[in-house]
């Protein structure tokens, strides 16, 4: 064959391939392949027509299917008392109800319980239940189901069977005796009659409704299954066998791919408009594409859409985005103390044995470091502005959040520098980094975990910002989360700075789970008697029955936190939930999008 022709052919093959690559990389550009556009347009037009028709008719339409997406498949545990992950919660929040839920100001509002009262010292809470509520299988919901739920969670076998929600039953009257098997009588939750149930607490309880906010499971389904065997029972994991009182029934699944919910016709708040909701498991990398093409209608917890995709998704035109601050936050922790080797070995948390971390001992030092970190910069650069720096470890949505009480560590490298100078941290040996007041090298070790892409990116940025004010940071290789948490816990190490994120609930702002001296999650090993006293004061009955009183105590605590700095709070990322505009009736709450799903409807149902 002719040589020139051959070359031409090779060239052609090459061009085709490059072209193919370019087309594929065109992701962000607005011009899409024209033919594809056409097919989509026809669909859009159809949608549009229906929307127009819809406008004339107005009002919710009956029927239709909605497709939700999550990035990871649920582990497969659809029993509220045993599930662990947000992926299961996605399904359970449609299939199960609790006695009480929360409104947009995070106050508890009626759900399965229509009214309630507490006694004077708040050691008991009596709730009147809705009558005529039916389970998915038609049985009636009664107070016995409530008792059964809490009894199962207090069962001696509950924890060893894999249950982790003991926080909801710990304060109940007689919990210890019942859960250790000393007695067979469960006194914590008592059914007074079919529609009245009373929670009894060991001590006066400042937030009793929180304990009544757990989803209820049916007694008639589980009564013959010992708690130890509940996790493997079909009733806890198989579509069709899982029974709740929620607006949707979990009827079918293709495991790890699709989870199908169908409406519960007899739902006590009225028959849902939607025929069914299908959950699909999709890879995050293709999520935006599927939203655009309409293959997926909504994406919310636990990840929503990534901040980097916000503008792309907004540009689609067919997608509504709900942007709200998240309850969790990311932090740069300061190791105040380390534990001794023996304590780590024995798993003991004995503040008296703790070894102070001399490298970060002075609060002024930690403040100086905090001024050197450009938190606004992180939010703008990494989160594309979809978040905010926060100053206090209490979510901004809470009544307890007090921005004024906490010091705002605005990015101020000069101030950081002069503070360090004052403290005697200056460069003695001329290596460009500050040395400690004794003239010794001062190197801060910094560790961070993998798993959160934005946090991973923030580590080298923070290192750079600190080095700009002359702090020598030894940024070490990131560790996989499992390994990281182990080292964070077993902290007889040389750790100084660490990155971590917390996702927190909406129930109560009490920070003691993370910041109390002896809390296992107090990875900074922060030991501040003042803070300790305030945290306990905020939970002490009877004064703490008053929310205003607690708010006051917490604002004092927030000020101590931000002065003593067990950690610099970096930012709270906004949650970005997205849904297709065909979905109507969405009424998001600060902590969930799945509020009143029975009122959701789609405008192209007919």
């Amino acid at each position: 064959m002719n040589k020139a022709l051959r070359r031409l052919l090779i060239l052609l093959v090459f061009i085709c391939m490059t072209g193919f690559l370019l087309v594929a990389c065109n992701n962000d550009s607005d011009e899409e392949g024209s033919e594809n556009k056409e097919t989509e347009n026809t669909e859009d037009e159809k949608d549009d027509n229906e929307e127009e028709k819809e406008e004339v008719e107005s009002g919710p339409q009956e029927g239709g299917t909605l497709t939700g997406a999550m990035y990871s498949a649920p582990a497969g545990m659809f029993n509220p008392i045993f599930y662990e992950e947000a992926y299961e919660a996605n399904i359970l929040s449609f299939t199960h109800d609790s006695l009480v839920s929360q409104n947009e100001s995070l106050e508890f509002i009626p759900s399965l319980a229509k009214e309630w009262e507490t006694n004077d010292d708040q050691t008991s809470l009596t709730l009147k239940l809705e009558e005529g509520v039916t389970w998915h299988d038609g049985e009636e919901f009664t107070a016995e189901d409530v008792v059964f739920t809490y009894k199962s969670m207090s069962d001696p076998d509950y924890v060893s069977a894999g249950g982790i929600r003991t926080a909801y039953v710990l304060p109940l009257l007689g919990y210890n005796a019942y859960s250790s098997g000393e007695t067979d009588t469960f006194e914590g939750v008592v059914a007074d009659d079919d529609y009245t149930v009373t929670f009894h607490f060991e001590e006066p309880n400042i937030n009793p409704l929180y304990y009544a906010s757990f989803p209820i499971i049916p007694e008639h389904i589980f009564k013959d299954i010992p708690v130890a065997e509940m996790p493997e029972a079909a009733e806890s994991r198989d579509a069709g066998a899982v029974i709740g009182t929620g607006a949707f029934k979990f009827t079918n699944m293709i495991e790890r791919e699709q989870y199908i919910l169908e409406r519960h016709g007899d739902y006590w708040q009225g028959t849902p408009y939607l025929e069914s909701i299908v959950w699909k498991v999709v890879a995050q990398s293709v999520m935006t594409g599927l939203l655009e093409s309409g293959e997926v209608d909504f994406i919310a917890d636990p990840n929503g859409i990534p901040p980097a995709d916000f503008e792309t998704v907004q540009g689609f035109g067919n997608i509504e985005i709900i942007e709200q601050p998240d309850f969790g936050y990311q932090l740069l922790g300061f190791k105040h103390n380390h534990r001794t080797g023996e304590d780590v070995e024995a798993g003991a948390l004995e503040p008296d044995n703790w070894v102070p971390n001399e490298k970060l001992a002075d609060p002024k030092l930690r403040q100086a470091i905090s001024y050197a970190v450009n938190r606004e910069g992180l939010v703008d650069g990494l989160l594309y502005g979809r978040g905010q720096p926060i100053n206090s470890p209490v979510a901004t949505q809470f009544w307890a959040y007090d921005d004024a009480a906490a010091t705002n560590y605005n990015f101020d490298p000069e101030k950081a520098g002069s503070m360090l100078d004052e403290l005697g941290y200056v460069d003695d040996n001329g290596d460009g980094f500050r040395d400690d007041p004794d003239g010794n090298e001062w190197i801060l070790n910094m560790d961070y975990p993998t798993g959160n892409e934005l946090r991973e990116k923030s580590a080298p940025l923070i290192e750079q910002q600190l080095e700009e004010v002359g702090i020598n940071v030894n940024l070490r290789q990131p560790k996989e989360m499992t390994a990281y948490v182990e080292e964070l816990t077993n902290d007889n190490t040389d750790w100084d700075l660490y990155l971590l994120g917390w996702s927190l609930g909406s129930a109560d702002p009490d920070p003691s789970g993370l910041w109390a001296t002896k809390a296992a999650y107090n990875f900074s090993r922060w030991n501040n008697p003042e803070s300790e006293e305030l945290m306990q004061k905020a939970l002490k009955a009877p004064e703490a029955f008053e929310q205003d009183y607690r708010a006051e105590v917490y604002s004092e605590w927030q000020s101590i936190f931000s002065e003593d700095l067990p950690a610099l709070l970096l930012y709270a990322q906004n949650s970005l939930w997205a849904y297709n505009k065909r979905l109507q009736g969405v009424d998001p709450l600060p902590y969930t999008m799945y509020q009143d799903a029975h009122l959701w409807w789609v405008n192209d149902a007919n």
Partner: protein
Amino acid sequence: MHKYIIRRILVFIPMLIMLSIIVFALATAAPGDPFTGKILDPTVDPEVFNEQREALGLNDPIPVQYLRWATAMAKGDFGESMYYKGRDVASLISERIVNTVYLGVFALVLTLIVAIPIGIYSAKNPYSPLDYGATTFGFFGLAVPNFFFGLIAIYVFAIKLGWFPAQGTISNIHVTGFAEFLDRIHHMVLPGITLGLAGTATYMRYMRSEVLDVLGSDYIRTAKAKGMSDRSVMYKHTLRNAMIPIITLMGFEFGALLSGAIITEQVFSYPGLGTLFINSITNRDYPVIMSITLLLGVAILIGNLLADIFYSIVDPRIRYD
């Protein structure tokens, strides 16, 4: 021959025991355990996890844990997953392995259908335009990372053109019978091509060079000198000899069928063994890690055994006794 096979299979046993000890040691030596990686949740008392560790025997010395696992395994009990509460490992694996095998076989068939004819053609007509095209494609296939190709394929063929589904193994619960079969194939096209891409390139190159090699050898010249037709030289002499390295490759592929699709499975949210394996490693789900590793070990050993047996069929000079 039979003796040979039996001997080979007996050798598997000590190898698998060794393998299990090494993997168990490595898995437990990795920092953390099934509970350290749990989402940190301040409402959950860490004491709860200690109690669960105790219940699962994770606080026992590692040799004790190994022996407990090994005795159960010897009885055919794969154990219970520590991450997927209340699920036994056998059911977890059997549920996933089907998908992985379908996908693997689909990709392999696709690979062979494309690679072998092109390889032969390239060898017969070296330096022809098609040979150059194939070579370019070969390097492209080897050079493009799987996940990248997968994403492009999804973007172009699933999202933009809408020809193939982007995710999963089946469109919905309602398709059954032959429609289900077609639907599954339809879902396998993109992941199958993605998975088979690098393999196709490799097989094609191997096939080409082997056939070229054999074509230049003395016995082919002899055969041609005897006046045999081109066709019969090709099929009777060349191919048989050129197939030997390909069979070795396929022997390895047999194990890779089960394990090789990890990345592709992730990109396509395809629930197979690969994703299960990765998840069980991140979650330190020891029983699942152990069972899958052993399974892969067995698959690779069997693959090699099959390859050895096939040698003797393809090449009569090779005999085992």
